């Protein structure tokens, strides 16, 4: 996975470096890509706020399949979102950025949840590429609600007897 993670980790650092600059100087708004999968992750270092990663469906699907080690169904939004969130979580941890008070990424899919409009509020966004395809990373200088949720279109399995989860 390193060949996939490393470009994301590098870009996370670039986004945060840029966000520090934009705090000090008025920044021009950049284009916000209309990507379908959105992951928000609270970060504490070097600037407190929210990393917003967005992925077009193709990239998200390829990343998820790489991470899971098997081909995920292209329309399986919950599994794709879950895997992509895990990748961003790992990349942010590897970059030493994660906010310990908000350890879990928020996963949204643009067509199902209003929170997916978060990228529109990013000060600036970097569009970039990894082996799985294009994606973008932005930074919001304010904390957002974070915590793993699943798209409304396909809910997670219900806990069995209110306790364990059936696979």
């Amino acid at each position: 996975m390193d060949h996939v993670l490393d470009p994301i980790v590098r870009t996370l650092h670039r986004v945060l470096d840029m966000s520090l600059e934009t705090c000090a100087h008025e920044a021009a708004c950049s284009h916000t890509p209309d990507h379908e999968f959105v992951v928000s992750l609270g970060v504490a270092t070097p600037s407190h706020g929210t990393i917003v990663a967005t992925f077009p469906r193709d990239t998200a699907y390829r990343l998820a399949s790489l991470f899971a080690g098997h081909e995920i169904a292209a329309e399986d939004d919950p599994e794709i979102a879950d895997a992509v969130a895990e990748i961003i979580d790992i990349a942010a941890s590897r970059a030493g950025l994660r906010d310990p008070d908000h350890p879990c990424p928020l996963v949204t899919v643009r067509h199902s949840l209003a929170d997916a409009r978060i990228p529109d509020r990013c000060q600036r966004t970097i569009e970039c590429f990894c082996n799985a395809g294009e994606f973008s990373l932005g930074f919001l200088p304010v904390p957002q609600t974070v915590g793993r949720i699943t798209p409304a279109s396909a809910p997670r399995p219900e806990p069995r007897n209110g306790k364990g989860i059936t696979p």
Partner: protein
Amino acid sequence: MRTLLIDDSLTMRTIQRGILTQLGHPDVDEAETAEQALALLGEFDPDLILVDRALPDMDGAALVRAIHARTPSARVIVVAADAHRRAVVDAINAGATSYVAKPFTPDVLCQCITEVLERSGDD
């Protein structure tokens, strides 16, 4: 051998379940929160527990302590995205037997589980 997987990521639980099944340990139950996990402990009585360090409702080290208090004989492997030294020390101090950094290959998790079970047999 019974194994409890505690991770808020369905993908991670699926990967871990697959590896355990390959190792010949298919008796697995899952929890996606610390609350679910603690509720399951008495009923499922696991021999091995894989714990995600960053759960939505409880810090991983605190959960390991709670598990250790309830089922001291269970072996606990902490699985986490951050492999920083402090995180490892926190997990071990809390009672974890071993620690695996994400992302891991199946071989790495297999080796870790095998080592933990061998150590368990020596006790």
